[in-house]
């Protein structure tokens, strides 16, 4: 019914020709759609599951003041179980702070070098190496913390135990560095070259260009890189479980062992009866973690979007 001359604009006619290409095209479109949708379905599914498991506890048993303000996590006490997360929150926070103190200067420095100074081969190699860091499984990092960092810290600082905030912080810092570096590098790349040229034409050296122009121009991107790094460090489980000492105390120094929120879930969930208060309390921690990482990622996302709209 469709008479098509060779002169007809292809754009209009293309949709009506149901040849093999059309079907292949449609097939892949649908396949992509299903993949895209399923990602959303999974996220929502996970959220519902976690929330369902923890909700009963949050609504009925949970004492909000105790949950957030008490350092005592004694879920297995027969007489009086308490569910305070303060020590774990403090431990997680301490480790995150140390990890960022290590990762941020390192990553931003690396990103500046890669984006502004390195050329050709060096640049490609550096990027590959940093991506390789990102590919190391977290249990291997935990192993490094346990077997290498632990004795090293004991010896260097003359402390009784090397599984502590410092150890976990270093490990998490190294783990977060690749993401921060690559996002920070994108932020530097997004700074238009005309700015560099303008500043150099005014007589600025490369360093002056970096700290007077590039850094201010890229600061939102750097902020979101830092936030995603925080999210990464915060949510990490295995490595921090192995490197932190897993002791339930509010740390007073970087040499104190701590226990992270994530590590608590990982360590205890397998041994609690499904549906028990303890089990539900662990899910409440899960919801808490979920909320915080969600907020961190959203904030980072908003900042990035802010940059694009500028």
């Amino acid at each position, binding site marked *: 019914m469709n008479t098509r001359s060779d002169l007809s604009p292809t754009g209009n006619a293309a949709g009506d020709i149901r040849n093999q290409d059309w079907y292949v095209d449609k097939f892949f479109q649908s396949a992509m759609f299903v993949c895209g949708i399923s990602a959303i379905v999974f996220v929502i599914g996970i959220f519902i599951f976690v929330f369902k498991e923890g909700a009963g506890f949050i609504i009925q048993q949970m004492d909000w003041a105790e949950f957030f303000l008490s350092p005592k996590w004694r879920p297995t006490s027969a007489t009086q179980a308490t569910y305070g997360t303060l020590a774990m929150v403090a431990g997680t926070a301490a480790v995150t702070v140390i990890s960022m103190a290590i990762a941020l200067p390192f990553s931003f420095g690396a990103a500046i070098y890669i984006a502004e100074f390195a050329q050709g081969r060096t640049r490609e190699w550096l990027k590959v190496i940093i991506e390789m860091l990102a590919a190391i499984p977290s249990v291997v990092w935990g192993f490094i913390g346990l077997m290498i960092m632990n004795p090293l810290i004991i010896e260097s600082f003359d402390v009784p135990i090397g599984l502590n905030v410092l150890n976990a912080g270093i490990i998490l810092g190294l783990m977060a560095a690749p993401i921060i570096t690559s996002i920070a590098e994108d932020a530097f790349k997004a700074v238009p070259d005309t700015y560099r040229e303008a500043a150099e*034409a005014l*007589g*600025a050296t490369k360093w002056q260009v970096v700290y007077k122009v590039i850094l201010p121009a890229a600061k939102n991107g750097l902020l979101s890189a830092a936030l995603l790094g925080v999210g990464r460090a915060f949510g990490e489980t295995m490595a921090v479980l192995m490197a932190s000492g897993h002791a339930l105390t509010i740390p007073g120094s970087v040499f104190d062992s701590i226990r992270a929120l994530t590590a608590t879930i990982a360590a205890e969930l397998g041994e609690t009866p499904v549906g028990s208060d303890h089990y539900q309390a662990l899910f409440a921690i899960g919801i808490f973690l979920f909320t915080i990482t969600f907020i961190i990622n959203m904030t980072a996302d908003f900042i990035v979007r802010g940059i694009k709209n500028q």
Partner: protein
Amino acid sequence: MNIQENQPDIAIRTVSLNLWYGQFQALFDVNLEIKQGIITSMIGPSGCGKSTVLRSVDRINERLGYVRITGAINVLDKNIYDVDVDLAQLRKQVGMVFQRPNPLPISIYDNVIFGHRIHRPPGSKLHRDEEDGIVEAALRRVLLWDKVKDKLQRKATLDLSLEERQKLCIARLLPVKPAVLLMDEPCSALDPKGTAAVEDLIWELRGEYSILLVTHNMAQARRTSDECVFMLMGRVMEHSKTDDMFVTPTRRETADYIEGRYG
């Protein structure tokens, strides 16, 4: 090279300048003498090498990393390719205005004082009042002060018109007291009103600075320049007083170009 006591009257002199972008030769045996204190315009069809000449004079071309030259470029009788030349010093002497206004993504105030802060001897710090004075003087010079005096701390990339941005880009060159201003089609991104305003400004600056102005706009070259250089395919075809060039061009190619027979 000797330091000259009396100022030379040639601001820029190129001697047998050849330039290659990688394998591609963009300039052929360019010999130019740009006089001090006047406005010299540079015209020629697209791709003839006008920007290339300008970008060699403040050595900004070197950013590319694959540019090679032979010959010499003297700015105020100093060969800028001598080994003892300090790039920052050269760029202090030679200011560049680009085709697209490119204020830096920092405040208007910081844009204007940027060059001054960079070229200040390390460790020395100016009093805030002195900086304020410098910024105001520069902005007044480009007739922008009244427009921006209430938003000096606003980011320069936010709410200035193209004309205002281009004026700002000129203003930020002035605090370091350059001798030469290179302008690469400074009005081509502007509307007629903005063009007229910036042209007036360039004329304003005549005498105090030696200005080399690239333009595609024949009328602009006639209006604003004392001398004119016509380039074609990487070579200088003709260099004479602007009035002479437009009335009695000596070369066939110049006449053709002026009369619009090239793209």
